[in-house]
């Protein structure tokens, strides 16, 4: 038994280890040594929710690079560079391109490229991109998908880097004569905001120059070329500014009239400016200049000012908690603790040392506490039940599995609660790791954004999944013990309770889902793949129970059928989301077919092996 467990563990940790770290040489740009804590806590509205800048930084960096850190910079430091020093940020390799050859980039270690690299490459592929954008996403080829993803990343980066462009020093040479003529500041860099006051005059002069001399800039004097450049820059900035909506850090003047936060550029383009926004833009500009000069004192003052200006408009407790949630990585810790608890079980199984078992129980308790605490925090931040996305459902089901295992461990004299709870939760949290890229603590799609049904139907179904997982693992244990000709009579009542409880939750959850569907979509049942999957689980359990009661299914076949619940739950939970059809297609995912296939194949193999072994022993 120990040998098998050790082999399994080895396989588990082999697949769970991160891919071999690909060393990326940091560029030579200096990273300003400024305090990032206050910046991280400043509010921004994104994806329909107020969140701290820390979350935006993490999400943006993860989206572009697939990493949490880049070149020894934290996500916050990277975002600060993008916002305040875009000229530096465009030279930092941050764009991850999975298949660089497809867009004409040379393959480099890490497959990280700079903004300049990807835009130059994408410039050559505008025709292919245009064709791809006219197709539906399900008809994209692999190359087109790569093009679209790269283009989306470019847009995100451009939006972020232009967020404060009108406050930053313009990198344009302006002759002194022009400075004097326009009465611009001479003691500091000129910003677009300085030029805005003279826009009429600049445009008028540029128009006169072009009318008089044409568009051939070689005939212009230095001063004339400067005016035309300025006019052109203003128009380009204005065009980019009108599209700039990503960094919504400007609170509304009258929240009761319109609670929407807007981007800084909307002050110039949409009339959202006010005396309050002036104070904010002034402080942001001070922050930007302090960043560029690496002036930590100036930076701290600017951050303090921004903190005070935002204080009346935001709930700082929520922002602070979210930063803590981002940093504490509770699910990783829970997974480690579950793994250690499982190891303790293995140690106890081999050595029969009670203290090792106690340690395992305690580790399971701590892991579960962290896990449930993190889910609770998530609920507080999102103000809804914790099962709105696939990732959240994995976290929730894992927590329920750990809880059931713990309760079983407390109530029973045998030790399978620890085994079941720790192993089940570990596997589910491990599976959840594959979906963290999609976890942006986002708001829900409209059909899910009804708390009553989210709390009833979805919770019920996911609790049902948790019971099915527990039932399946217990059935595996019983088949294994049967294979070794050990008695399982003490487990039969337990597995019956588990089975019936699974059936209860899955059936009630399915019916509640029908009621919700009737209210949302106008029909109780539409043979949607998700609905079919839930029904399949209920029918499978019912068939097994009735078959066993009627004597049509022998004990080992019954246990094998229960063990197969793992496969059914996986197919229902993840498999149907691959289809992208039906009204449940808001949950569409791609790229998990391979892993799902491997899981189903391995599970089938294990079940057949255990069943055959048990049958042979029985005969």
């Amino acid at each position, binding site marked *: 038994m120990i040998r098998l467990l050790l082999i399994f563990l080895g396989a588990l940790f082999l697949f769970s280890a991160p891919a071999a770290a690909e060393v990326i040489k940091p560029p030579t740009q200096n990273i300003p040594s400024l305090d990032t804590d206050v910046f991280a806590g400043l509010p921004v509205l994104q994806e329909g929710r107020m969140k701290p800048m820390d979350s935006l930084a993490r999400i943006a960096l993860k989206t572009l690079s697939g990493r949490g850190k880049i070149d020894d910079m934290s996500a916050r430091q990277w975002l600060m560079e993008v916002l305040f020093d875009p000229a530096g940020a465009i030279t930092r390799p941050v764009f991850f391109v999975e298949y660089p050859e497809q867009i004409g980039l040379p393959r480099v270690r890490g497959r990280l490229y700079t903004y300049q690299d990807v835009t130059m490459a994408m410039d050559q592929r505008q025709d292919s991109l245009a064709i791809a954008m006219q197709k539906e996403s399900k008809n994209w080829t692999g190359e087109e998908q790569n093009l679209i993803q790269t283009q989306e990343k470019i847009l995100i980066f451009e939006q972020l880097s232009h967020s404060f462009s009108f406050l930053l020093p313009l990198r344009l040479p302006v002759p002194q004569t022009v400075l004097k003529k326009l009465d611009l500041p001479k003691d500091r860099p000129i910003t677009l905001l300085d030029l805005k006051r003279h826009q009429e*005059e600049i445009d008028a002069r540029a128009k006169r120059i072009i009318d008089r001399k044409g568009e051939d800039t070689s005939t212009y004097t230095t001063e004339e070329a400067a005016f035309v450049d300025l006019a052109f820059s203003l128009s380009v900035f204005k065009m980019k500014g009108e599209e700039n909506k990503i960094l919504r850090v400007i609170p509304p003047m009258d929240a009761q009239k319109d609670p929407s936060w807007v981007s800084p550029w909307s002050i110039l383009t949409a009339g959202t400016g006010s005396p309050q926004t*002036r104070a904010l833009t002034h*402080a942001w500009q001070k922050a930007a200049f302090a960043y560029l000069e690496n002036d930590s004192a100036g930076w701290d*003052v600017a951050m303090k000012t921004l903190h005070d200006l935002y204080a009346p408009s935001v709930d700082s407790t929520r922002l602070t908690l979210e930063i803590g949630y981002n940093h504490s990585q509770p699910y990783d810790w829970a997974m480690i603790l579950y793994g250690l608890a499982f190891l303790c079980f293995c140690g106890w199984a081999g050595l029969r040392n009670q203290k090792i078992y106690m340690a395992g129980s305690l580790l399971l308790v701590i892991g579960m506490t962290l896990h449930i605490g993190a889910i609770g925090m998530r609920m507080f931040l999102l103000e809804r039940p914790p099962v709105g996305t696939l990732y959240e459902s994995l976290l929730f089901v894992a927590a329920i599995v750990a809880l059931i295992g713990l309760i079983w461990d407390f109530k029973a004299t045998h030790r399978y609660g620890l085994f079941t709870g720790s192993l089940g939760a570990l596997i589910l949290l491990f599976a959840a790791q594959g979906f963290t890229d999609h976890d942006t603590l986002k708001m829900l799609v409209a059909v899910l954004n009804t708390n009553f049904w989210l709390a009833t139907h979805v919770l019920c179904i996911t609790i049902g999944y948790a019971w099915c997982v527990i039932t399946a693992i217990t059935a595996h244990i019983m088949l294994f013990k049967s294979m070794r000709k050990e008695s399982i009579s003490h487990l039969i009542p337990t597995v019956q309770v588990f089975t019936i409880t699974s059936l209860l939750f899955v059936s009630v959850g399915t019916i509640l889902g029908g009621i919700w569907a009737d209210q949302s979509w106008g029909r109780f049942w539409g043979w949607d793949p998700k609905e079919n999957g839930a029904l399949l689980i209920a029918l499978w359990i019912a068939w097994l129970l009735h078959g066993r009661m009627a004597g049509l299914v022998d004990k080992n076949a019954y246990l094998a059928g229960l063990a197969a619940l793992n496969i059914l739950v996986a197919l229902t939970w993840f498999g149907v989301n691959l289809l992208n059809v039906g009204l449940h297609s808001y949950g569409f995912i791609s790229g998990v077919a391979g892993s799902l296939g491997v899981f189903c194949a391995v599970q089938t193999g294990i079940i057949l092996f255990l069943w055959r072994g048990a049958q042979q022993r029985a005969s």
Partner: protein
Amino acid sequence: MKISLLLLGFCLIVIAAYTIYSEQHFFKPNESAPILPEDTPKRIAGHYTAPNFSYETLDGKKGALNDFQGKVVLLNFWASWCAPCVIEFPQMIDLASKKPDQMVLLFISIDEDRTAIDRFLKTHGKDLPKANIHVIHDTRKAIAQTLYNTFKIPETYIIDRNGMIVEKIIGADIVWNDDAMMEKISTLYNAK
């Protein structure tokens, strides 16, 4: 089992304590003086004070926004080249004419050229001058852009008799001299 329950309780207490501690101690900025610009609006009961400014009207009279405490002020930013301003200009003059004791109207032009303003007023400001209407040329856009962050025009701030900004209206989508606005001005004037 008892030990496990005790440990569970201990873990919950630790997590709660960490949460409270981090909320109180983390991410607090240094205690340094903020760098707010002059006349940064103060927030009182959900509204902001209107930043004060000094001005000189087209006919050379000097004044300041705070001179009009006790009356409702309409602070309108406009320009001669602004098409919606053509619509709202006479409406606002009519409104101010009907409420001479209750309100003051400040027209702040961001035109760069004074002659454009004069040309505009010749056509659309025939009823001027009025005692409670002042036309101001904001040559450097110091009031419009620097103080009030106004970049799209027309924009109008409604300021109550205590100097608090009550509302900001962007564009010329409302009828300024209708009964609803008259009522609003009276209500603001009569409020304490």
